[in-house]
C-alpha cells in the first residue's frame, strides 16, 4: 500500500453508538437487579409483607456479594486469562478490615457502658485496655496489637478495605507478572499466597484472634437498637447497589479498547507484547482492580454473615469461586453472576436441609452428604461438555432472533 493515496474521502467515523447500546446485557441486568431488590424489600420482614424471613434476606444479600466477587473473578480469568486462585483471600481481607472496626467499636460501646456505671468515669487508657482484654482474652492476650491501633476509626478501616487487598495484589502481581509467571504456574503461585495468608491468620499471635476469627459482626455500632430485620434489608440494598456499580464498571472496562487488549492478552500474550503493549501493566491493573472489588464485596458480605475466620480464606474457597464462574460461563459478566447465584443458592438449599432426601429403597441419598459429590462431578461434566457454562445458553436465545 503506497502512502501517497489522496485522502479526499474522510475515513468512516468510528460508530458513535452509546455504551449501553453496545452492551444490551447491562440494561437487562440493571433492570432485573432493580426488580429483584424491590421485590425482596416488599416481601421482607423489616419493610414489607414479611413473606421472606430475615435470614433469607441475609442469604440473598450475601449471594449478591458473592456475585460481585464472581464478576471480578470473571474479568481476571474469563477476560484476561489469569486463573487466580487467590481472589477469595482479598475478599477475606476486606471482611477482616471492616470486621476489626465492627468488633472494636461495638466492644468499646459495651465497655464504656459497663465502666460508666462505676462511681468514677473511666479513663481512655482503661477503656482501651478493657476492650483489648475483651477481644483478645480468647487468645490469651490482653494487649491491643499494633494493627488495631486505628480500629476504632471507621474511615481508616474503610480505607483499609480498599488498600489492603489493593496493595497486596499490586505487590504480588508486580512480582509475579514481572518475572513472566503465567498459566498454571501463576495459578499455583496465587494458591500459595492464599495458603500462606490463611496459615498466617490461623496463628494466635498475629493479632486477628487466630482461628476464632472475628465475631458478632452483624451488630452495627451506632445502630445497635435497629432490629436485624431492618439491618438485613439495608445491607441487601448496599450489596445490590455495589453489585450494580461493579457490573457497570466492569462492563465499561471490558467493552472499550482496554477490553480488546486484555482479551487479546488472554488469547495470545506474546503477540500483544510484540505489538508494543505493556502487557504486564494491563495485567497488573486488572489484577489489582478486581482485588479491590473483591475486598469491597467481602466487606459487605461478612457483616451479613456475622463471623469471619481464617478458614474462609483457605485455598479451597478461591477454587470454588473458579467453579462458580466456570459453571456460569466465562467471558461474560452475567454468566459469572448466574453461576455464583445458582451454585451458592443450590448449595445452601441442599446442605441446609431444605431439600428432601431421596429414598432409593436400598440406599437413602442424604443431600448434605452427596451435594459435594454432585458438584464435583457436575463440574467435570461442565468442563468437558459445556465449556461456555450456563451463560452459553443465552447465545442460542440471542442467535434465534434475526
Amino acid at each position: 500500500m503506497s502512502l501517497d493515496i489522496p485522502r479526499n474521502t474522510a475515513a468512516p467515523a468510528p460508530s458513535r453508538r452509546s455504551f449501553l447500546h453496545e452492551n444490551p446485557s447491562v440494561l437487562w441486568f440493571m433492570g432485573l437487579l432493580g426488580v429483584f431488590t424491590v421485590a425482596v424489600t416488599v416481601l421482607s420482614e423489616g419493610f414489607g409483607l414479611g413473606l421472606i424471613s430475615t435470614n433469607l434476606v441475609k442469604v440473598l444479600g450475601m449471594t449478591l456479594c458473592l456475585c460481585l466477587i464472581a464478576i471480578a473473578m470473571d474479568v481476571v480469568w474469563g477476560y484476561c486469562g489469569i486463573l487466580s486462585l487467590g481472589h477469595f483471600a482479598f475478599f477475606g481481607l476486606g471482611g477482616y478490615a471492616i470486621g476489626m472496626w465492627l468488633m472494636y467499636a461495638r466492644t468499646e460501646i459495651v465497655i464504656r457502658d459497663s465502666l460508666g456505671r462505676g462511681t468514677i468515669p473511666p479513663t481512655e487508657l482503661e477503656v482501651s485496655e478493657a476492650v483489648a482484654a475483651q477481644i483478645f482474652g480468647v487468645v490469651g492476650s490482653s494487649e491491643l496489637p499494633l494493627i488495631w491501633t486505628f480500629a476504632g476509626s471507621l474511615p481508616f478501616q474503610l480505607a483499609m478495605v480498599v488498600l489492603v487487598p489493593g496493595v497486596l495484589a499490586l505487590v504480588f502481581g508486580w512480582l509475579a507478572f514481572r518475572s513472566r509467571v503465567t498459566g498454571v504456574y501463576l495459578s499455583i503461585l496465587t494458591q500459595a499466597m492464599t495458603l500462606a495468608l490463611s496459615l498466617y491468620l490461623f496463628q494466635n499471635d498475629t493479632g486477628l484472634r487466630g482461628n476464632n476469627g472475628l465475631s458478632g459482626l452483624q451488630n452495627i455500632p451506632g445502630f445497635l437498637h435497629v432490629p436485624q430485620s431492618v439491618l438485613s434489608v439495608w445491607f441487601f440494598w448496599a450489596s445490590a447497589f455495589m453489585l450494580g456499580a461493579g457490573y457497570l464498571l466492569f462492563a465499561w472496562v471490558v467493552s472499550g479498547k482496554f477490553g480488546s487488549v486484555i482479551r487479546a492478552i488472554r488469547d495470545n500474550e506474546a503477540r500483544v507484547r510484540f505489538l508494543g503493549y505493556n502487557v504486564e501493566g494491563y495485567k497488573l491493573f486488572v489484577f489489582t482492580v478486581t482485588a479491590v472489588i473483591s475486598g469491597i464485596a467481602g466487606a459487605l458480605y461478612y457483616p451479613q454473615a456475622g463471623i469471619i475466620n481464617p478458614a474462609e480464606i483457605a485455598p479451597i474457597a478461591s477454587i470454588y469461586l473458579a467453579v462458580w464462574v466456570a459453571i456460569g460461563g466465562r467471558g461474560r459478566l452475567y454468566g459469572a453472576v448466574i453461576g455464583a447465584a445458582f451454585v451458592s443458592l443450590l448449595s445452601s438449599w441442599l446442605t441446609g436441609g431444605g431439600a428432601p432426601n431421596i429414598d432409593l429403597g436400598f440406599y437413602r441419598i442424604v443431600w448434605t452428604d452427596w451435594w459435594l459429590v454432585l458438584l464435583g462431578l457436575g463440574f467435570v461434566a461442565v468442563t468437558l461438555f459445556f465449556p461456555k457454562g450456563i451463560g452459553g445458553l443465552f447465545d442460542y436465545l440471542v442467535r434465534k432472533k434475526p
Partner: protein
Amino acid sequence: MLRLFPLVALTLALAITLPLRAQTDSLTPLQDALQSVQEHVASPSRATVPAVLRALLDADAPGTVDFLRAWGDREVYERAEDGLFFYALEAPDRMLALIDIDSGAEAGAVSTRAVNQIRPNAGVRREIGAALVSFELMHPEASRRLAALDNIARSPDAEQIEALTLARDAEDDSRIAARMDRLLDLLNARFATDTDVRVDAIDGLRGDISTEARRVLNQILQTRAEFAPEIPEGTNVARIRAPGSDIELIAAYATLAEAGLVPARPGRNAIRDALRRNVVDGAVGGIPVHQLTSDEMRRAAYAALEAQGSVAPLVTEDDMRAAVREVVFFDAYLEPDPAVTDAARDALDSTRTRISLWQFVSISLDALSLASIFFLAAIGLAITFGVMRVINMAHGEFIMMGAYTGYVVQTVIPNYTTSLIVALPLAFAVTFAAGVAMERLVIRHLYTRPLETLLATFGISIALQQLAKNIFGTQARPLTAPDWLAGAIQVNDVVSVASIRVAIFVMAIGFLAMLLYILNRTRLGLEVRAVTQNPGMAASMGINPDRINMLTFGLGSGIAGVAGVSIGLVAQVTSEMGANYIVQSFMTVVVGGVGSVFGTLAGATLIGFLQKGIEWFNPANTLAAQTFMVLFIILFIQFRPKGIVALKGRAAGD
C-alpha cells in the same frame, strides 16, 4: 553417711559371700532368722535395723532380698497368735490370704484383725532402701546391677555415694564400671563434701550432653534473686542487677515494698479505688467526679486526698530511684562455693557448643525425613505434571485413596507386617486403576486446555474427598505400623529418630532408584521421554502417545497410592489428608523444576530443610514456619522461574 557405713558393709559382705556359703538345713531359714530378732522386725526403728540385717546375713536364706523389699513396702504381716511373719494377699470378706515367706505357699486365710501389718517409718524405710541398693549393686546378674544403677540415676541422693564407690571397686564388667564412674561423677558433683572432689567430678561431666549430666550442672547453678544494703560476706554472687536496666525500676521498688522496707506504690488501680472510696458529694478532693477521665486529673485528686492525710502517699519516680539506690539487687547461687559454680559454668558452656552441634544433626535428620515425605508425595505429581504438562489436583486424593486402602487391608489382615506388605502393592494397583480411568475419561479430552484440566481434576478431587467422607466417616482412621517400626533409634539424649521415618526415607530412596531405572533403562522410559520431547515425532516413530500418556498417568497415580500408605503410617488417615499435601507437592515440583526427577528431589530437600530450619528459630510455631516457607517459595520463583533444575533447549517447551 558414716552411720550408714556398717550397714552397707554388712550387706555387701552378705552379697559377696552369698554364692559361697552353704544353705542351712532348716526348712524355714528365713522365718527362723526373723524370729531370732522378732521384736526388731515387728516394731522396727532405725537403731535396730542393723541387728535385723545381721541376723539375715547370718542365716543367708534365699528370698532375703524379696523380704527386705516387702518389709520396706509395708507388705509384711505378723500373725498375732504366734508372732510368725507372712506376706498376704487380699481375700474376699475382709480376709487376708497369708503366704509363707520361705516357700511362697499359701498358709491359710485369716481375718485382718488376726494379723498386724508392719509399718516401718520413713527413716527405717530409707535404711532398708540403702541396704537394698548396695545389695543390688553387687548382684551376680549384670542386668540387676544395671537396673540398680538406673534407679540411682532416677533418684540420686548423697547416701548412695558410699555404696556406689564400694561397688565400683568390686566391678569387673567394664561397661557397667564406666556407667558407675559416670554416676559417681554425677553424685559427687552434687553431694560430695570436699570441694576438690566436686570440682573434679564436674570436670568429668564437661562435654557430656546427656540430660542427667546437664540437669546436675543446672541444679548446681540455681540462683535466687536477693537484695541487701551491700553484698554480705561469703555470698556466691551470680550477677548484680542494676535497677532500670537489668531489673525494671517498678519491679525493684515493688520487691522492696513487699519486704516492708518502703511504703507500697499506689498503682493506677489503687488510685482509682482510693478515689472511689472518697467520693464526697459528687467530688473527690474538690474535683468533680465527671472530670476524672484522665490519669493527670486522677492524680491531682489523689494528691488532694493525700494532703488531707486520708490515703497513702503517692510515690514518684524520684522516690523510687532514691529507694532502690540504697540497696544492691543481685542473684546469688544457692551453692556457696564459688569454685564449684565456676567449674559447673565452665562445664556447661563447653557442653552447650556440643549440644548445638548435635541439635543441628537432629534438625537435619528431621528435615531429611520431612523431605522424603514431600518427595514421596510430589514425585507422582512430578511425573504427570512434568512429563504430560497436566496438572492433577486430584493427586492428593490419590494419596488419600492409598492410605484408606492400607486401612481397609489392615482391618482384614490383623497382622501388621503382613498387611503392610499386602497394602503397598494393592494401593499401587488401586490408584493406578483410578489414574488410568481418570486419564481415559476426563484428561484425554483436555490436553489442549491445561487450565481446564486443573479445574476438572479439582472437581474430581472434591467428589472423591466427599465420597471418602461418606464411606469412612469424618473420624480419623489409624494406620498402625508393625512393632519393628514402632520404636526410635536413640543416638544420644539429643538425637533420636523414629524408625518409621527411617523406613520412609529408605522407601523414598527406593522410589527414586526405581523411577530413574524405569525412565532411563526401560523401553517404557524411552517412549515416555520421546513423547515428552516431541509427541508428533514420537507418534511417527511408531510410539502410541495415547498409550504412553495413559501409562504415565497410571504410574504417577500409583506412586501416589504407595506414598499414601507411608504417609498414613506417620499421620492420621482422613478424607482431607490429601488436600493437606497437594499445595506443598506442587511447590516441590515447581521449585525443583518441572519434568525432572532430580529436580523434585532437590525441591523436596530444599523445602524440607527450609521448613525445619525456620522451625528451629521459632520452634513453638509450625504455622509460622509454613507461612514463611510459602513466602520464600513465592520469592524463589521470582528469581528462578523454572525451578532449581531447569530443562534446557526444546525439552523445556515454551
